[in-house]
């Protein structure tokens, strides 16, 4: 066996230029795969993080049925029951209560339908990043019960600016007309059109007063320590709350379209990665085939001397393995290195910032370093380099010794 490994190794060294090109092709292909995967994972991670951090949160807890049919009649009057469970859940980093209801906003110039959210200004900052998206004026503070923050586009439609007065109208929890005037404290620009056109925020206290909902809330928005904790935590909360009283929904349940888009993105990326893999495999196959054709006479000699066809196959496979191992090693180092460096510095795509913002992706993308993904791709490339040598190996093993020697 050692002799075949030695011959395989020397065959690699014999045509150094061709071996170098193969190793470089495998390394470049794997490096591209690792980088592409890291980049897409980074962009997807950023999208999920931005989407959930902006407003939705990682998990929302409602009264059962709220998500299907939002309304004040499905409000929660025992917030402390939920809070007690959340405080005891290690994966939960922060949570905040909200009131959520559709309403009508009016200015002297115009009026518009809105999604009005009552928030606890201080606790909301621990769960979402809306306070960082203020483009004019300021975000709400505790006690700002006569103030309102609205979307920038909504402000343009209403032709109002910070300091102007607007009126909110809706239906209160008790069925009466809810109406109150607020001073515009700030304009929020989330980057998402639906939010910038339709969102308005007042304090939780102000919302409870407006809708006559003393001590009631619509939902609790929850932030977990990591995006990876979301699904398990949501399931854990569902188990603990029971499905009859409350619903604990992850962002995937709250925004299935966004989740589906993400899945489509993953499938599309996998397709591209598969095509890159095919190109890499083609390069290896080409090199091994060339090597076999070049050594037809040598294989003929070996067969004539009594080398078994299976031994020829093992030798060619060993050659591919060495090439694949060297290429995969270099490709892994290069790919992982680039992902690590770019993961720290980020890749500036400011030129595409408008398009990226629509998908909740920032203009600087930080590729994600995932050792398991890298190991999987390196393993696939290594396996491929051996698997695709089977055809040329069998071809070599089936040569007629006498014809091969004459070639």
């Amino acid at each position, binding site marked *: 066996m050692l002799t075949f490994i030695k011959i395989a190794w020397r065959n690699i060294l014999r045509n150094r230029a061709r071996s170098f090109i193969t190793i470089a092709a495998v390394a470049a292909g794997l490096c591209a795969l690792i980088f592409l995967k890291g980049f897409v994972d980074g962009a997807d991670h950023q999208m999920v993080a931005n989407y959930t951090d902006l407003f939705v949160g990682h998990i929302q807890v409602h009264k059962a049925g709220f998500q299907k049919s939002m309304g004040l009649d499905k409000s929660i009057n025992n917030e402390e029951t939920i809070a007690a469970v959340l405080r005891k859940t290690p994966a939960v980093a922060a949570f905040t209560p909200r009131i959520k209801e559709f309403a009508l906003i009016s200015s002297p110039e115009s009026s518009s339908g809105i999604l009005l959210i009552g928030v606890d200004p201080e606790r909301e900052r621990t769960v979402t990043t809306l306070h960082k998206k203020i483009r004019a004026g300021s975000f709400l503070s505790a006690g700002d019960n006569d103030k309102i923050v609205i979307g920038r586009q909504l402000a343009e439609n209403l032709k109002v600016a910070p300091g102007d007065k607007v009126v909110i109208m809706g239906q209160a929890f008790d069925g009466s007309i809810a109406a109150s005037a607020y001073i515009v404290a700030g304009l929020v620009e989330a980057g998402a059109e639906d939010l910038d056109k339709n969102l308005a925020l007042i304090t939780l206290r102000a919302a409870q007063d407006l809708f006559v909902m003393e001590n009631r809330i619509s939902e609790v928005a929850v932030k977990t320590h990591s995006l990876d904790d979301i699904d398990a935590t949501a399931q854990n909360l569902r188990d603990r709350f029971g499905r009859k009283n409350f619903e604990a929904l992850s962002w995937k349940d709250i925004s299935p379209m966004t989740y589906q888009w993400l899945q489509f993105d993953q499938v599309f990326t996998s397709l591209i990665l598969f095509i890159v893999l095919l190109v890499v495999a083609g390069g290896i196959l080409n090199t091994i085939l060339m090597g076999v054709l070049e050594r037809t006479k*040598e294989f003929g000699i070996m*067969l*004539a001397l*009594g080398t078994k066809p299976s031994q020829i196959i093992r030798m060619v496979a060993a050659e591919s393995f060495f090439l694949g191992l060297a290429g995969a090693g270099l490709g892994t180092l290069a790919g992982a290195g680039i992902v690590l460096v770019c993961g720290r510095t980020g890749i500036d795509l400011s030129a595409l910032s408008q398009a990226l913002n629509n998908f909740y992706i920032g203009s600087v993308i930080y590729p994600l370093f995932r050792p398991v993904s890298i190991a999987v791709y390196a393993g696939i490339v290594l396996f491929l380099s051996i698997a695709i040598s089977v055809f040329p190996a069998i071809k070599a093993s089936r040569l007629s010794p006498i014809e091969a020697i004459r070639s």
Partner: protein
Amino acid sequence: MGFICAVNNVNKTYRFKGSDVETRALNDISLSIEEGGFVAIAGPSGSGKTTLLNILGGLDAPTSGSVIVDQTDLAGLNAAEMSEFRLHKIGFIFQAYNLISTLSAYENAEYVSLLQGAPKDRRLFEARQIFKDLGMEAYLKRRPTQLSAGQQQRVAVARAILARPKLILADEPTANLDSRTGSDLIDLMAVMNKTLGLTFIFATHDKMVMEKAHRLILLHDGKITQDIAQ
């Protein structure tokens, strides 16, 4: 002493691809060669010498007729069995040496005995002994490209002998060598024949080889024209 090989009514016809024209390389050949023989098969180019050697070595199959080597009927062997047969029973010495270019002289010489599973100590000991007999001790680690034609052919002889085959088939072993080197090499093989009892069959049109052989078989147009004991 018994026969190491026997061919009976062997014919070999080649048909070239895309052509209906047939060429008859061997025409109803029958002969047997005794164990320990030192035999030369001679004749002009195209007389069928190499074809006969290839058939004896299991590298080619006859169109008809039977070939028996060391009591094995080659017609009954599949590809894997034929590999085993060549590995254990036949030693080849080719006109163009046919060494494996990536291996050293020593590694080339031990290649077949390695495939046979001979222990490393024995391979090394016997290889050194044979290289010494061949005057090649200084060239053990050299690659084929670093050796002269005569030296390469000696390595090929070492490879054939180290495998301890029943039969050594040498196809024009002196064709690419100068007369002195060629003569020395044949003398060396004669010594091996005498001391180790190895059977040698040469395909040649070198008069020196014909003269040194103990038996000379002359072929012409695929037929045996003379069979002379010397």
